[in-house]
């Protein structure tokens, strides 16, 4: 009989122990991904709406997106929208309700440490973003999108942008009631989509407005994406700095203010 077998007639005989950290992280990430993919509303905001925006804005000439091929202007913006949807709105809503339903409290009694839960959530967000970008890039290509620049240069932009939005999303989820988080996360998403520099390039706006918008994380991420993918320039420092400041503010405040139950 191997040592892992329970003692006969004593199936519940104590044999406590935590699983290895890599296994715990993999399990938690896998569960979070499955639950997310099962959630229709989350898929709507992370995938369906970005695809509709991509197709709609690039084919219908209702919005002035400035010079250049429409699809080349719109695609980086939709990438940015995808990050906003997943790292901010979807994460905030899911975490807000997990907190409200006591899931975070209950998980706190398992061997999974809190930092492990945050790590699993971050991994989940990054995996979903990767999937979103692949799908959106496929759709954009079929519409004639021809990116310049290097995908590798997007990586730091995506990571810092994701950190910024995740910090803000967790701050919201960890301090507001779940219903308030639901409403606010969707409202902010809508406001940033409409006026956060995602669709219309800042260069098409009056200088004062553009300067104001450029400090928003949505505008910074989008401008960075456009610099790399549309103009083929190197990684732009300005947007990266803006995103890094938001990331520090968001993650820093969330780590102090987050209430687990």
């Amino acid at each position, binding site marked *: 009989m191997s040592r*892992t077998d*329970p*003692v006969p*007639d*004593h*199936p*519940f*005989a*104590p*044999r*406590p*122990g*935590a*699983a*290895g950290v890599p*296994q*715990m992280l993999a*399990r*938690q990430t896998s*569960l979070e991904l*499955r*639950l997310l993919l*099962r*959630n229709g509303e989350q898929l709507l905001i992370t995938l369906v709406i970005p695809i509709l925006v991509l197709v709609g804005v690039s084919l219908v000439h209702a919005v002035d997106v400035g010079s250049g091929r429409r699809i080349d202007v719109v695609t980086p913006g939709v990438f940015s929208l995808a990050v906003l949807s997943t790292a901010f709105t979807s994460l905030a809503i899911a975490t807000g*309700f*997990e907190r409200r*339903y*006591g*899931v975070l*409290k*209950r998980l*706190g*009694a*398992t*061997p*999974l*440490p809190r930092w492990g839960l945050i790590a699993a959530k971050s991994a989940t967000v990054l995996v979903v973003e990767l999937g979103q970008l692949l799908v959106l890039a496929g759709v954009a290509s079929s519409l004639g999108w021809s990116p310049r620049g290097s995908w590798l240069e997007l990586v730091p932009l995506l990571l810092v942008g994701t950190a910024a939005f995740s910090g803000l999303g967790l701050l919201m989820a960890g301090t507001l009631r779940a219903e308030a988080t639901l409403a606010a996360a969707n409202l902010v998403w809508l406001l940033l989509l409409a006026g956060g520099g995602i669709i219309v390039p800042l260069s098409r706006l009056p200088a004062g407005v553009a300067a104001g918008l450029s400090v928003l994380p949505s505008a910074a991420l989008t401008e960075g994406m456009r610099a790399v993918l549309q103009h083929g320039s190197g990684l732009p420092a300005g947007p990266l700095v803006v995103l890094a400041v938001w990331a520090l503010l968001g993650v820093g405040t969330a780590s102090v203010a987050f209430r687990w*139950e």
Partner: protein
Amino acid sequence: MRPAYTRSVPAPAVEVIDLVKRYGDLVAVDGLSFEVPAATVTAVLGPNGAGKTSTVECCEGYRRPDRGSVRVLGLDPRRDGHRLRPRVGVMLQQGGIYPTVRAVEMLRHVAGLHAHPLDVDMLVERLGLGATGRTPFRRLSGGQQQRLSLALAVVGRPELVFLDEPTAGLDPQARRATWDLIAQLRTDGVTVVLTTHYLEEAERLADRVLVVDHGRVIAAGSPAELTHREGQGALRFRAPAGLDLASLRAALPDAVTVAESSSGGYEVRGALDPHLVAAVTTWCATHGVMPEGLTLARRSLEDVFLELTGRELR
């Protein structure tokens, strides 16, 4: 039978000394002390709002005591939480589970966070969760949700489990399955602390009962000790109406009362012991009276609670 588990921790499994927990002006726990010996079942019994959950949550590390000390398996649940979590199973009073997760999926998940978990299939069968299939947690019946929550508390093979109201709202069959599992935990060497406001549950499962009210322990002991402490009880029998009560009374010890509570229904109240029973039946034999339906009724925990607090438990 060899011991199921060799304990590395000296008793007691839980030690609470002079615990105080306040929420603003409300004093939920007011100087509460108790010990839980290892490998026993302790029931914390009391009405809603007695401070049961606050006490347990201080032991689980969720709440910071305002005063007093809490040791769990010899450790401080706030400071040493990361060392305790693999060793302690927790069943919350409600919630704590993703609304969209499936029962077995959640159980496998938590099992996977432990090094030597129980066999999930065994647990699923034992608690009757096999029929839940792909149903999301939020659509399970209350009883299924409760049983899943219990399964999550034990799946990691903990040394100690805290079960907050484990059978609240369960139907009799599910309650029996839960009781059987708790009894098995005890047999297998797991220490169990449960809160309940069901007297039957405490009487049936617990080695030790703590009766808690207004954040204090107002009585503690085994169910037998609690119900026999004052030796109060009633001996009842039926016989022809109009027996000579004065004669019977004279044959019995001083502190005993005798009454014909209904026509032909007699009740002797006092400290029940074999001598009292013998004295009653001897008197009956002497007077040619057959005590039909002779019963001895000891106090229930309900009576104890009523006497201690002047209130009903529920």
